């Protein structure tokens, strides 16, 4: 593998792809922020800040939603999948920009954390095809997004465990492609989450709906 191309894939291409991602997200956030948003004006019954905080942290409190309390396995799956995703993203920064910390044990830890996400991604794909409820709402973007994340995880694990220039190049080419696609896909949900959780949480907080005592939820 040509060293120049490996370097390009790891550095220049990543910076271009990240720049693209940031620019598109800034545009999206500005567009969304410019939409009208009627504010709560009735005398507050609770705290909008606490409500927003609760919205942001809800997902970490499985008993706060029936959807996680009743389906604890699904909640654990969600956690493991997103931890894997977080590590895979972190790896795209640490490998090229902080190679000193990527010792053999660290690479193994990263790979071990990404591996469950890779397996759970397959479970998610199978479930999406098998469940009539999920199949009905799924679009080509749903399948492609899931598949591309799977590819990203797989290449990440290979680049971590088989530390050859070939796998690193493949990994960073996939990462760049992924970054170019993400702003257009449902994978962008993590950006919108910060908006919606704040809006919904503030409303529930203002009206005294959330947070409630634990027994109330």
């Amino acid at each position, binding site marked *: 593998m040509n060293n120049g191309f490996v370097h390009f894939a790891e550095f220049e291409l990543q910076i271009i792809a990240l720049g693209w991602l940031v620019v598109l997200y800034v545009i*999206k956030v500005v567009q*969304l*922020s410019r*939409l*009208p*948003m*009627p*504010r*709560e*004006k*009735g*005398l507050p*019954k*609770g705290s909008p800040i606490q409500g927003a905080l609760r*919205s942001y942290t*809800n*997902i970490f409190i499985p008993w706060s*939603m*029936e*959807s*996680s309390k*009743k*389906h604890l396995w*699904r909640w654990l799956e*969600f956690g493991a999948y997103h931890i894997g995703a977080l590590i895979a993203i972190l790896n795209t920064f640490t490998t090229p920009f902080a190679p000193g910390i990527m010792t053999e044990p660290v690479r193994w830890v990263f790979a071990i954390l990404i591996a469950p996400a890779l397996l759970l991604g397959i479970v998610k794909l199978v479930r999406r095809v098998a*469940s*009539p*409820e*999920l*199949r*009905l*709402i*799924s*679009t*080509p*973007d*749903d399948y*492609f997004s899931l598949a591309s994340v799977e590819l990203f995880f797989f290449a990440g694990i290979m680049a971590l465990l088989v530390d050859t220039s070939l796998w690193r190049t493949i990994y960073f080419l996939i990462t760049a492609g992924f970054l170019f696609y993400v702003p*257009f*896909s*449902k*994978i*962008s*949900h993590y950006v*919108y*989450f910060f*908006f*919606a*959780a704040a*809006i*919904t*949480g503030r409303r529930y907080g203002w*009206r*005294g*709906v*959330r947070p*409630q005592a634990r027994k*109330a*939820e």
Partner: protein
Amino acid sequence: MTLDLANKELGKKYTRLVGSAAANMCAHCGWCIDACHVYLASRNPADTPVAKAERIRRVYKKDHDWLSKVFPFWTGAKKLTEAELEEWVTLAYRDCTLCERCVVNCPMGVETPQLIAAARSALVAAGKAPEILTQLADMAISREENAELYRDFFLEQVKEIEKQLQEFLGTPDAVIPIEKAGAQILYVPLSGAHTILPEAIIFNAAHASWTMSMFEASNYGVFLGDSAKTKRISERIINEAKRLKVKEIVLTECGHAYTTLRWEAPKWFSDPLPFRIRSILEVLDEYVRDNRLQLDPLKNSEPVTYHDSCNLGRKGGLLEEPRRVIKAVAQDFREMTPNRLQSFCCGGGAGLVAVAEWSEARIKAGKPKADQIRQTGAKIVVTSCDNCRHQITELSEHYNLGIKVTSLTELAVQALVIK
């Protein structure tokens, strides 16, 4: 033409809230699927919250999402068609009661009911909203426009109720004041004695400074999704409160009236309203706390359960007040499971109870609530919303629950000790 009007209205409703719900915020994870009472009753994949939201989201995406504009097939985006708009009528008015149970069970907080509400508004603009809801909203407006025509009948009705009040309290001093300027409270009932007499008993027993006016609390503009009518109907009460210079508006046990006046109406005015707005539930809670009523819970000895109206509870924040009152006026209170924030909609919310041709679907969608009630073994179901009361009464008949449905004020009146 109708499509243009519907699309224009969808554009107007594209707020930050709708914008984020319509965008790629929904990851199609399916966590909301079994949060919906309509889906739980039908098990039809098209009845899940995400499937319903998706129908509207895809139309929004066609106009607002970059990828969907270029490759609509990739995200399922599509233009609104006449056929789709026709299907939205049942989707928006029958198959979703805007209960928000899906919102509190979504890890992202996707506001699906906002999308459904936008669809309702589009249907109003296109002239496709259920006729009965339009008629009921128009009737409320007409009552204001022709107030003098209704006045005599209203006063006559109140006089009759006043006689019953005096008989109940055993004193001719008990009164139902009408349009009394300077009173502390403007109490706003629904049309019908069942939301006037019990409250009049409570206000008199607590020696409250109160008055009534001839406008009722219900607001079918909300159910329609017609912002102009909603505002117009609400303004009747707000203007009356300003004219009478009251300190607060107290709304009867009505879910949508509370959410609309307490939380939505203040947004329409640049200046803060010169009075506070409360529900009778909060007033009862205050009277119980301040010992302004002499109550004997032994008078309500049968097991009682409480149904949280979605508007009062999940959307309004009145979760503990009714419970504190029930514990003070009844001997055996049993919670439904789940309750409060996770309470199931009765199946008749958001105007559905008024549309006769959809009664079969409504009763079917009420099955999860009927099951919840049966599990408590309660003989009395208290609910603080007239729509819920109507629906649960019908559920009791259909599913043989053998229960009596009552309001919280009526239950409190039962426990009242009259000297």
